[in-house]
């Protein structure tokens, strides 16, 4: 999988170690989650979805926290920290992917446990709205403009989004608490966790954190490569423009 050509692109020894560790941990997670860990007393085998669901939601929120921190950094530095901006963007991209995964695996879990795919609880609703917000963040990253402009604009969205999380969560919780009569399903997703289940979950969180680091390092380097390619094409474009003028000096 890691051939010499990869090592000349965005891979280094460190990312290879992280990547292999992530794969091993993921295999381990699947083994423990699907086979070795016990079924839950209340939920039965449905609890096995938790071992991928909880680590992926952890990854998604970790990604958005990283994006938020980098966004603040970019704003303070007035957009002139391209490396930080790339980490913000890379982190948001991977966060959006895992938030989508989280939502779908959560719905599958909900379908088994509650009998419905969706429930208007604060966690789900906040996550769904946050997902849309970060799709908007990525849309802003795709706007026309200079790299610096892109960095500052998307950082604004990153900061507004992180300010939004507690407000959305609070408002939906308040909404739910005043409308309890709507709830017919009282099974919560909280499970009575035993030692092996906790261990499996722990393996999952480690594995997905490794995936996060691996993805962000690679994605940020891909962005850096794209910037370098642009820089090189600028040299060519400058040479072309220079050829337009017959060596005219100043007098």
């Amino acid at each position, binding site marked *: 999988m890691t051939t010499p050509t990869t090592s000349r692109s965005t891979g280094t020894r460190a990312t290879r170690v992280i990547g292999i560790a992530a794969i091993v941990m993921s295999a381990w997670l699947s083994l423990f989650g699907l086979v070795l860990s016990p079924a839950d007393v209340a939920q039965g085998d449905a609890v096995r979805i938790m071992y991928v669901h909880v680590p992926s939601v952890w990854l998604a929120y970790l990604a958005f926290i990283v994006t938020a921190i980098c966004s603040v950094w970019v*704003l303070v530095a*007035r*957009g002139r920290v391209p490396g930080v901006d790339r980490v913000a963007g890379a982190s948001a991209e991977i966060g959006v992917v895992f938030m989508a995964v989280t939502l779908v695996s959560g719905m599958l879990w909900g379908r088994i446990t509650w009998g419905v795919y969706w429930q208007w609880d604060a966690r789900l609703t906040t996550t769904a*709205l*946050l997902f*849309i*917000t970060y*799709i*908007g963040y990525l*849309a*802003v990253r795709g*706007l*026309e*403009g200079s790299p610096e*402009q892109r960095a*500052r*604009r998307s*950082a*604004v*969205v990153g*900061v*507004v*989004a992180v*300010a*939004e999380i507690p*407000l*959305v969560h*609070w*408002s*939906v919780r*308040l*909404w739910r608490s*005043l409308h309890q009569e709507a709830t017919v399903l009282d099974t919560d997703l909280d499970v009575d966790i035993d030692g092996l289940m906790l261990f499996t979950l722990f393996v999952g969180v480690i594995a997905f954190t490794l995936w996060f680091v691996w993805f962000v390092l690679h994605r940020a380097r891909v962005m850096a490569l794209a910037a370098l390619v642009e820089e090189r094409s600028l040299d060519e474009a400058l040479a072309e423009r220079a050829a337009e003028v017959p060596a005219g000096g100043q007098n």
Partner: protein
Amino acid sequence: MSTPPGVVATARMIAARDLRIEWRARVVTNQVIPFAAVNMVLFAFAVDDTGALGRLAPGLVWLTVMFSLLLCAQRAFAIESADGALEALRVAGVDPVGIFLGKATALAVQLFALAAVMVLAALILYDLDPPAGGVVVLVTSAICATCALAATGTIYAGLAAGVSGRETLLPLLVVPVVSPVLIGATRAVEAALGTGGTAVADGWPWVGLLAVVAVASAVVGALTFGSAIRD
């Protein structure tokens, strides 16, 4: 000798100018309010049940105000970018915090007027019978909600001003962020109008939520608006 105006003076100047332009051009009065009103009428067809319509009224009012926000915020920056004025403001070194506060204030005033008309329309069209004590909750919640909406709308409309594709980008950015406002304002108005079977006093926690959202949006906007409009 001339000294440049401070933040508050700048904000007042910008807000006064925006409101004067609206007073002259009547875009909100002659275009956005009729659009919002026809929304309220169409909701009646969609729901087709007077009892349900009454219960839904607060939500429909604020949904309409949110849609109108998208139009008004777009309009607020269309006047800036029509002839390059936003760029000229930047070259002139006008404080972006002042620009933000001024434009958000003008937008909030327009939205508040619009919300008032929509509440009135709901009372008439949906046959509501509000309790007398609800006015205070109604007005304070509407003030907080329109301020919060205006602040968020100003940040993102400023960010998208002059960018191609802004018409579709703005709703994507604004709507998820204003969802707490929609929830809070709907519940507060529900309590104020007595449509949800709750007491008027139940509206106060929601007013508190709206006030927090308004302050948070204004603070975030003031801190980030300079970066949002730099091009």
